[in-house]
């Protein structure tokens, strides 16, 4: 049950309560008493998905696959319909476990294991790093945080507070300093001290600003100067309440730094998490973690099946 513990199943459910109630609660209600799929059903489904930020293309895909299946599998009872809906939605999402080490307790393929955190402004990068540091530390790993957001006012101070809370080391040069130098020092120090995990915070940047995206690629190259196979992961943080622009964010950040996974934040507040489905489906990038609160332990592993299961329970 190690995995289940890491998932903190009940908390996940609690955090997703809102999502479940609105999105999937509606699906359960939608399915109730139905034995066949008609236009009215599909339209209602479409509306629910759109209103959950799934986006038009992915919604249409889901709706089409469901109506196609309904034609093939003629007779259906309520339970079958429910299962089919879940199945189709689940299929739209990547499984993070296939490409990434998701468990904090699992052995790392390489040390220092370098994780770069990127994203647009205000999505929760710094907070997510604090939470990840805490989780890795608890799993018995040594952690170093690189405060490479040297742009935003008091960003380094904010990260220092999180490092202290998590009880991990931090390399910080302060505001206005060269982020490349921070990263280089951090990786060098991690190599010298045999640190297990390096978490690199970066300044928030809008993905349509080419010079800032170029700066990000440069930071990545600085890491590689010291460790050619690093960063081992590049996680893009997305605000759960973001609409379709999140897809464009994922595309651009991937272009610049090859995003390997997503962290979806603020899912405790917004009722909709549908953007995960769209991004996972359209860009083949799995969701790795979800943020469900402002406290240090409010980070959850994302698991496709458990996620949907928890939603449907």
């Amino acid at each position, binding site marked *: 049950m190690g995995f289940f513990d890491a998932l903190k199943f009940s908390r996940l459910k609690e955090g997703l309560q809102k999502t479940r109630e609105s999105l999937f609660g509606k699906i359960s209600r939608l399915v109730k008493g139905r034995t066949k799929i008609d236009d009215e059903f599909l339209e209602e489904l479409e509306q629910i998905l759109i209103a959950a930020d799934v986006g038009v293309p992915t919604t249409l895909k889901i709706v089409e696959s469901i109506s196609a299946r309904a034609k093939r599998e003629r007779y259906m009872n309520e339970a079958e319909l429910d299962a089919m809906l879940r199945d189709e939605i689940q299929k739209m999402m990547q499984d993070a476990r296939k490409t990434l080490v998701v468990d904090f307790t699992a052995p790392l393929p390489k040390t220092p294991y370098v994780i770069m955190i990127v994203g647009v402004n205000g999505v929760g990068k710094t907070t997510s790093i604090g939470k990840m540091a805490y989780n890795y530390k608890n799993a018995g790993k040594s952690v170093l945080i690189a405060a490479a957001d040297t742009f935003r006012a008091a960003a380094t101070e904010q990260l220092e507070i999180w490092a202290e809370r998590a009880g991990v080391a931090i390399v910080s040069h302060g505001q206005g300093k060269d982020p490349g130098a921070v990263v280089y020092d951090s990786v060098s120090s991690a190599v010298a001290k045999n640190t297990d995990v390096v978490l690199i915070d970066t300044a928030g940047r809008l993905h349509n600003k080419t010079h800032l995206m170029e700066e990000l690629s440069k930071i990545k190259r600085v890491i590689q100067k010291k460790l050619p196979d690093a960063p081992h992961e590049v996680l893009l943080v997305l605000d759960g309440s973001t609409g379709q622009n999140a897809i464009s964010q994922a595309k651009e950040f991937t272009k610049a730094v090859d995003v390997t996974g997503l962290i979806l934040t603020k899912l405790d507040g917004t009722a909709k998490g549908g953007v995960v489905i769209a991004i996972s489906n359209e860009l083949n990038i799995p969701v790795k973690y979800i943020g469900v609160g*402002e406290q240090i332990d409010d980070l959850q592993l994302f698991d496709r099946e458990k996620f949907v299961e928890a939603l449907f329970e």
Partner: protein
Amino acid sequence: MFESLSDKLDAALKKVTGQARINEVNIGNAMRDIKRALLDADVNYNVVKNFVEQVRKKSLGEEVIKSVSPSQMIVKIVYDELAALMGGTQQDLNLKTSRVPAVIMVAGLQGSGKTTFSAKLALQLKKKGRNPVLVAADVYRPAAVEQLKTLGAQIDVPVFSIEEKDAIKAAKDGVEYARKNARDIAIIDTAGRLQIDEDMMAEAEQLKKLLAPEEILFVVDSMIGQEAVNTAKAFNDRLDFDGVVLTKMDGDTRGGAALSIKTVVQKPIKFISQGEKVDDLDIFYPDRMAQRILGMGDIVSFVEKAQEKLDLKKTEELQKRLLENEFNLDDFYQQIQEIRKMGSLQNVVSMIPGMSKLVPQDKIDERDLKKVEAMICSMTREEKQKPDIINGSRRLRIAKGSGTTVQDVNGLIKQFGEMKKMMKSINKMAKSGRPLTAENLPFGRLMQR
């Protein structure tokens, strides 16, 4: 930010234009595309539904069919409805109070840009000769106070903060500080909060009760999706805020939230924030924004629209004369009349992509156009057709007749001469098969002073 939205609308509208008649079927297609474009832009599902329904109803209404061409009307209706959704005219802050300090409370979700906006607003007010103080009432997020202090130092505006983690006290003492130190505006930067966080929403309510702010601003990230409506609604229910601030407009979001929020809470959008630097703050002009929605398409689609709007026959004739370089002031006058049919001058200019570069918005003055019209009207037939004959005494007569000055007339005739020169090159272009675009119409050139 509406680029992509307007592109989509253009694509959708193209299906409508170029069809001889509007019927239930093709209006359905256009509406479906418009709906899709709006949904892709993150406009709230219900807002889209209502919008499309309104447009459909108006389009199928009687007055549509009576008018010139149905497709013209659809374009007009879509624009009108979008403009209506965006709101009326620009609204300023309610700072006309004798109270010292006037209080501005800034609230919103986590990471929406409240602190940055607070500093930007302080800088703007300071530039206007006010004496603001920034009050750090986000006592929860790590280093939030330091962030505000750093920004305050950048813009040289004092920041008030307390050691205790008590937002109410921080705000109260901050206002007191402002009063004692002759600071006439206190900007209260509050913590980010989720609308479902009952304790935090109660705190916000309490702050409002305590401070009785002249202005409560709701700050929202322009990239927000369908939830924009619920969030804005919840904050509005609790705080009855006065205005909305849309942030991160420097991104490429289609910004449908701007449309939805305005529709649902009926509160004006007062500012847009478009950058991380403290001076990246702009006033929100709903009408401009609505114009932008329809106006940023490619030139081709504009020409389609323009040609729909203009009397096609007359345009063709003018075009022919233009090509033959026989274009005279009479033709020019007619052209102005045709363009006028399309709406206000600013409106027209903003609709033509190339034109807005040619003629900056703030340089456009309806009065200039009226002058030109008046001058041409005061000319004789012969003068209009052969502007070369307009000598000194004729100029004086025209100026008197049109209530303008000789300089104005000189300017017009000079520019018209330049226009004709320019037309020679357009002529070449047109002969090479390039369409006569709005950009090439002499009108834009004339307005460029």
